[in-house]
């Protein structure tokens, strides 16, 4: 069963198509990375899911409920906004206590202490108005996790954290995967690569790609090989003659070739090296990074 499913979801702001026929599927129990350049429609998608804006056409099913017909599913969701703003007059404990109150959490005091410990705000006594952006981000995560939701929707959860804080938050999100579904919008591709099982790439409101990360990498494998030998000039001439690669690029003391078929090429390269009596220093099959794929997908349209 899917935690999130959209059917032809459209959201227009006057003439602008913020979401255009979005068909998205997020299976339960995974971390889904929702990628896209600025203005792609990521936050609009989240606002539609949270019933803060109404879709122009189509619908979404969140935890099995149609968002046009019910709001009960919101009780099972934890949401972290991209710029977390809270009531500045509250302390973290007071704010979480208010959230516990309106979401009917059982044994709230114990739960609040657990959550504050989890996000590293246990010793914070000051008002939220005095918090740094990173601390607000942690508090945002705390209020999202407080009701122990089935589905976590995180809008740029690591954007304002330092490297250490980012690692801690990513580890925390990853540790929640077993019993929650996490929908995670971000610009930071390394974060996605690190913890997500599946991704969707959005541009101008349209979903360009949606699949498991492994499948996407296989699909976008470029069949590129990096080779380092002691005589690049001689080697590149032989490669051109024998392998007839799609492209050949000499960079510093290495050569990168792109071929149509990788397995036979990998057998032939050592033979050439032996025949030419060259010294092989490095041989590496280059896998495309998520960034490469992201740029390729978003630039192709």
């Amino acid at each position, binding site marked *: 069963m899917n935690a999130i499913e959209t059917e032809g979801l459209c959201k227009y702001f006057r003439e602008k198509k913020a979401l255009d026929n979005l068909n998205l599927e997020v299976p339960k129990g995974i971390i889904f990375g929702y990628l896209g350049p600025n203005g792609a429609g990521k936050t609009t998608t989240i*606002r539609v899911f*949270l*019933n*803060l*804006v*109404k879709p122009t056409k189509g619908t979404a099913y969140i935890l099995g409920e149609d968002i046009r017909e019910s*709001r*009960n599913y*919101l*009780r099972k*969701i934890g*949401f972290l*906004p991209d*710029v*977390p*703003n*809270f*009531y500045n*007059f*509250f302390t973290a404990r*007071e704010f979480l206590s*208010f*959230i516990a*109150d*309106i*979401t009917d959490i059982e044994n709230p005091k114990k739960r609040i202490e657990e959550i504050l410990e989890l996000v590293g705000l246990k010793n914070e006594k000051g008002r939220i108005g005095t918090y740094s952006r990173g601390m607000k981000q942690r508090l945002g995560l705390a*209020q999202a996790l407080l*009701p122990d939701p089935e589905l976590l929707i995180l809008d740029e959860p690591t954007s304002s954290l330092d490297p250490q804080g980012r690692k801690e938050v990513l580890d925390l999100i990853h540790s929640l995967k077993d019993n929650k579904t996490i929908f995670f919008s971000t610009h930071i591709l390394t974060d996605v690569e690190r913890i997500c099982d599946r991704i969707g790439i959005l541009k101008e409101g349209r979903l360009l790609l949606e699949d498991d990360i492994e499948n996407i990498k296989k699909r976008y494998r470029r069949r590129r090989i990096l080779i380092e030998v002691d005589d690049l000039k001689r080697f590149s001439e032989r490669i051109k003659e024998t392998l007839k690669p799609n492209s050949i690029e000499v960079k510093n003391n290495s050569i990168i070739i792109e071929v149509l078929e990788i397995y036979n090429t990998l057998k032939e390269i050592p033979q050439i090296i032996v025949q030419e009596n060259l010294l092989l220093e490095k041989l590496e099959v280059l896998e495309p990074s998520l960034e490469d794929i992201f740029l390729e997908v978003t630039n192709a349209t």
Partner: protein
Amino acid sequence: MLLKLMKKEFYEFRKTGKLIAMIITFLIFSIVSPITAKIMPELIRSISSEITIIIPTPTWKDAFLQFFKNLNQMVFLIVVLLFIGSIAEEKNRKTAGLILSKGVDRKKWILAKFLFQISLVFILTIISFFLCYYYSVILFPDTEFDVSLQSCILFLVYMTFIISLTIFSSSIGNNIIQAGGIFITIFIILGILNMLSPVRDYNPIYLSSLENQWVTTGVEWNSAVKTIISSITLSVILIFIGLYSFNSQELE
């Protein structure tokens, strides 16, 4: 849910000093009004000692005229300033979206604000009325309780309308400036309409004149029925439109 949300409003007012500002404003005017009425003639005489000024002997009516004048000016201003951003600023700061994304009903969220504001103003008005009455009786033993209390009821109806108008303005405006602009525009229009006698009887602003009229010439419910009914009706309509508008708004 309404009580939980009202509790948060109360907490906000307490923690941000708004509550203490309101209490002080109400209490100061309830105590100062009868005292001012009593000593004003002496003050005027002491300032202009060379000119003979005939000032009528102050009565309890002067105390309550002063009290309602202060309520309609200073307290009105404080109430509007403190309440006008209650919804618009939460939309602007995106806290509204955060709380509503927890499954809180939009109508209940607005109603909780309205009920909290009206409860606070009613409680403080009633306390300050009794304080004003207490000091009036000390300074003017013939103070009429019935007349002053009934005039106070008119003020409560008037404040119900004003709070409904702030809720309406705040529901529609996206920030405190917009909400304030909507409030002022409607208030000015009502002020102009109040000068036209055919519609004045149906104008909530006319209630503030009636309070003084009742204190001066005595209670006359017949003359106020139209104004009270139209004020309550308009308050209900404003709240209803505010709820409807907010319910269909797209939030950040």
